């Protein structure tokens, strides 16, 4: 079974763009009455966050809501999407089937404009198993689905959090999650079967804030003595 967490920040108009068919929790970090009304009308649950902008914490809160409210099984899945990353192409059944067949714990969704595709061949159908053991690994958290058992494994490592709570600003929290996945030898892949609105890469507008997050990232790598590969393993298309 699939569950979904969506981060929404002043994106009321997008709420209805997320497909139905699975239990969804919206996390509002700048909530308005229109958000709540729209979310409720759409049949979704919600979490209200007191502070805007901490995406890792927001995802953790949404995940907590899913775990406590819906009590998923170990072999269920939780999908994480950003409020502007509603699906353009959505094929969850096939994505989950691929994950089952190839024992993939985490599937990254592609975006309409995706800088990762310059480095990784991603077929239109199927998926590519990627290496998240490099410093700039392809783990972006704006859209991915993860098996609950894998989520719990990471949470046990991160003191109960999927996303390391020391990341309080934009950037690097997702790539760190990629390193943790690699640490537990979880298989991560990327697919175009579900294609999201928006782009990945080139977010230079955030660079001013990025250094602090990057420093946290580096500190954590050193703290856990994670080995960093300089070149990714060869990609495998499945």
């Amino acid at each position, binding site marked *: 079974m699939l569950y979904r967490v969506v981060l929404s920040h002043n994106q009321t108009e997008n709420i209805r763009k997320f497909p139905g068919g699975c239990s969804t929790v919206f996390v509002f970090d700048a909530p308005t009455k229109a958000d709540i009304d729209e979310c409720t009308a759409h049949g979704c649950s919600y979490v209200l966050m007191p502070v805007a902008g901490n995406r890792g914490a927001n995802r953790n809160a949404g995940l907590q809501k899913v775990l406590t409210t819906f009590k998923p099984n170990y072999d269920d899945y939780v999908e994480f999407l950003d409020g502007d990353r509603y699906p353009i192409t959505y094929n969850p059944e096939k994505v989950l089937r691929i994950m089952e067949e190839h024992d993939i714990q985490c599937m990254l969704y592609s975006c309409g404009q995706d800088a990762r595709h310059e480095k990784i061949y991603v077929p239109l159908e199927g998926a590519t198993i990627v290496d998240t053991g490099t410093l700039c690994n392809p783990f972006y958290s704006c859209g991915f689905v993860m098996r609950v058992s894998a989520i719990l494994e990471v949470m046990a490592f991160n003191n109960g959090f999927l996303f390391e709570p020391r990341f309080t600003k934009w950037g690097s929290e997702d790539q760190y999650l990629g390193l943790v996945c690699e640490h537990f030898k979880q298989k991560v892949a990327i697919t175009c079967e579900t294609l999201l609105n928006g782009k990945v890469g*080139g977010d230079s507008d955030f660079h001013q804030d990025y250094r602090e997050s990057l420093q946290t990232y580096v500190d954590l790598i050193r703290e856990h003595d994670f080995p960093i590969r300089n070149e990714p393993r060869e990609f495998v298309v499945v």
Partner: protein
Amino acid sequence: MINNPPRNIHTDYVASDVFKPKDANALAASVQYDFVITKERVDEYREKHENTQEDWMDVGSLLWEDYETTPDYTCGGRTAIHILINFHTTIEDRFNFGGGLTSLASNIQEVHIHSLSSYRATGTSLNIFYHTHGTENYVLFDEAGGSLFRSKSLHVGSFMLWDNGEGYPQWHNNGGYPFIYENCIEGPVPTGASGEPDVIVEQKYWMTNASGRRSGGGGGVGGTCVITDFDIFDDGVDTVHSSVFSGLYTVINAGNTRVLHNGATEFSTIEDDTKGPISGNGWSYADSGHRWYNEYPWFRFNPDENVLDIYTWFAYKGVEYDSGVYKSKWYVNNRWTIGGGFDFGIMANELQEGIVYEVRIHIVSLPPSDPHTWHNAVEPHVPFNEWASPISEKVTPGVKDSESLGQDITLQILFTGEFSGQCAPWGSPPGTSSSNPYIKPSFKQPAAISDNNDCSTYSVRTSGRIYDIIAEATVQFVLLGNRAYIMSY
């Protein structure tokens, strides 16, 4: 006797105070004016000298009523003095810089006239430097009162005018570049539209001395540095250097580059700067044994610093004359080959493991006028000295990416020692992508376009691109696991 006190805005600033936009303006304001000609003084002068409205105001008399009887003014022993015309003049305001001004103290060798707006001048027989600011401001030199180029130096904004004696002003814009002549020879200006001066020795933007160093961000991170070139319009050099940065901070050439250190109140030259280690908490350079090619040193971050800001100028405003109308226009500084990229040498074997370092490149257009009002012939509503600051908060907006700058900008960071080689972007370690060693930094706008939207409607576009910008690009890198990684898109 009118002897206005020097306009000494501050004397006790320290680097940590100065290097914020606001304080950088204060630094710019620290240009000391020995004398200030006010509107009140001019009114008083005109009242006393009846019927002079249509005549020439003797600047010497404006400054010293008694110059004829007390000719020796020491001006504190300085050899150069600065006079500010501190009101909105028009081309009908006529100043005679001969006459009483020639009675200055014998030790005075240079007279700098700063003005906020246009005026008419004559009597240019001294070593006078004319500085006007704002793209629509100029000095109309009257041939009847003397030779135009008998002045030692003309710094007159982006163009200049002179009266050719035929009833209309002759305009010259020096090919779109700021009209700054130095060491002009004596002799009459050729009458005619294309009168070129016989000697152009050097062009400088004196305003660039307003640059300053900003304090670093939070978190105990050390200070940052401003590296700038004082001479981006180096007409005295036949061949413009093909790279922007040869070594650390050489935009055009080392001789014209200045560096401002923490705690310093004056810029130093590279030559002076590299004679020995820099003490204190400023940044420092490698010794001569570690110099990069081209004899310029590698950059070395001090232990308490991890951010470097590079400010460099890209375009400037000028004025175009079209069908009797002067129009402001942005000019790309084509002579400054920013397209060559930034080559940046780092002493990587001295980087601290696990510390994220950041290099920020700021492309700054010189702000010769307030973008709010530059298109109007009205009193600007920012003070003169704010114009002079290249870090002025008044200079905002525009389009921010490499392409919008009109040049393909790349950044190459070269590391020393065991990390020698070239770094590829996006987390790649050195030496693994030598075929593509350059980063193409994404430039962004630091502030949203707001009040300056006017610019889109006032002829500031050149080939569809806006140039009145401050663009910024940031590149981070880190030494991790005994390797240096560049962590940018």
